[in-house]
């Protein structure tokens, strides 16, 4: 059943894919994103993030050894690192800015 349940519609990542990642011990959203590719499509994670966090919350609370295994990991599920731009912006609009002259 989980093969037919889509978590990330942009990149066709199924529940089974996420469960496989969790089964391998990838319990942080940054790991799951890069192992399955979810959240990297045209909506940039807007559709899959909450579902993924919920799955990771369940998996993390069931795993009492995680802290010992990954001491520096965040203890609760967290969102993806936000990547600008917030909404897609065309190259033409961006090129009209004065990037070359702008101070840092």
């Amino acid at each position, binding site marked *: 059943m989980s093969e037919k349940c889509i978590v990330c519609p942009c990149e066709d990542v199924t529940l089974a894919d996420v469960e496989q990642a969790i089964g391998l011990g990838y319990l942080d959203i*940054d790991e799951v994103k890069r192992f399955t590719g979810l959240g990297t499509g045209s909506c940039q994670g807007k559709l899959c993030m909450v579902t993924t966090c919920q799955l990771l919350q369940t998996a993390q609370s069931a795993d009492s050894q995680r802290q010992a295994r990954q001491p520096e990991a965040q203890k609760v599920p967290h969102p993806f690192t936000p990547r600008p731009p917030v909404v897609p912006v065309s*190259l033409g609009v961006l090129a009209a800015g004065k990037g070359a002259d702008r101070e840092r």
Partner: protein
Amino acid sequence: MSAKEKMPASADRLATEAETVIVGGGIMGLGIAYELAKRGRSDIHVIEQEYLTSGASGRNGGGVRMQWSTELNIRLMQESIEICRNFASELGINVWLRQGGYLFLIRSQEELGRMEQTVALQNRCGVPTRILTPQEALRIVPELHPKGFVAACYNPRDGVVFPWPFLWGYAHAASELGVHIHTYTKVTAIEARGPHSFVVTTSKGAIRCERVINCAGAWSPAIAKLLGIELPNHPHRHEILATESLKPFLNPLVSVLSSGLYFSQSMRGEIVGGITVPDVDDGQVHLGSRLRFLEMMSAELLSVMPCLSQVRVLRQWAGPYDVSPDGLPILGEPDAVPGFYLACGFVGHGFMMAPVIARHYAELLCGGPRHPVFDRCRLSRFQNGTSEKEVMIIG
């Protein structure tokens, strides 16, 4: 060994003793771990401060090319691309290698003169790079602005890979062979108790070992400093963007050496590319995104390929280059600390060089032949004066 112990995500416990501790779970560390394990070495622990793919290995554009200005790099990359071609069958993972070539656009006659020498050197090494007229280049990429360049260099055997599966391939294969990977684990101290005797302290406990390999990339100067060694390399932020997906139309990776622009179309259809942007370079790793990069990148990209102006940018991110003063890596043991090995200073091309460097490093550590790269790339060259410099560096 429990079931989880064999998993690449992170091993249950850190051992108290090991033969080899590798600092850094990027492609260099995982590649060397895999190649060592393949040669029968056990007792290898890889310590990664965050998750696998968190550093430059998960943030780069995936370019793999043979077009370089030094014979050393040309020959290494010929071998590395051969390894990439066999990666899927050896490690059972699809790294999406696509050999669409690299097309370097040349903007001035002076630059053309320099590139003619470089291409002659590449040809002597057996790389089929050709100098093209603008008309010939336009046959390969008809969408280029025809007035933007005077000539181009083209090697059809260069290509691009998708970096993420490359790392998972090494990590899973290394785990299968018994390598212990520890993610979200920080190295906080390294003590040398004598030649080939170290204690590495981490947030998961301390481990005694005979050998430490510094594969920490942009973080490698900080790791070396734990042993009192000053490295001449430094981190430099390099930004990159990806657009929405387009129908496949762009075969080669296109680059402009004079501005540091490069872009290619990924197998997912996105245009992925970056450009050189000055930064503060204060010795710290900075991974923040800047509007300035988006504007510079878009302006330069559209000057080369104006038809992309309606294409939208989906995301931008940054990765840390590990910049060495002469553009060549830093390898081998510093004289002062036998048993402490360096694999750093790869200046934004460590990803493409990792397959070949990892293989030769493992051979060296297992008593096999010593590749000339290890003599050429010693740390001591920076005191003794360096003879050549790699100049074909993008970004």
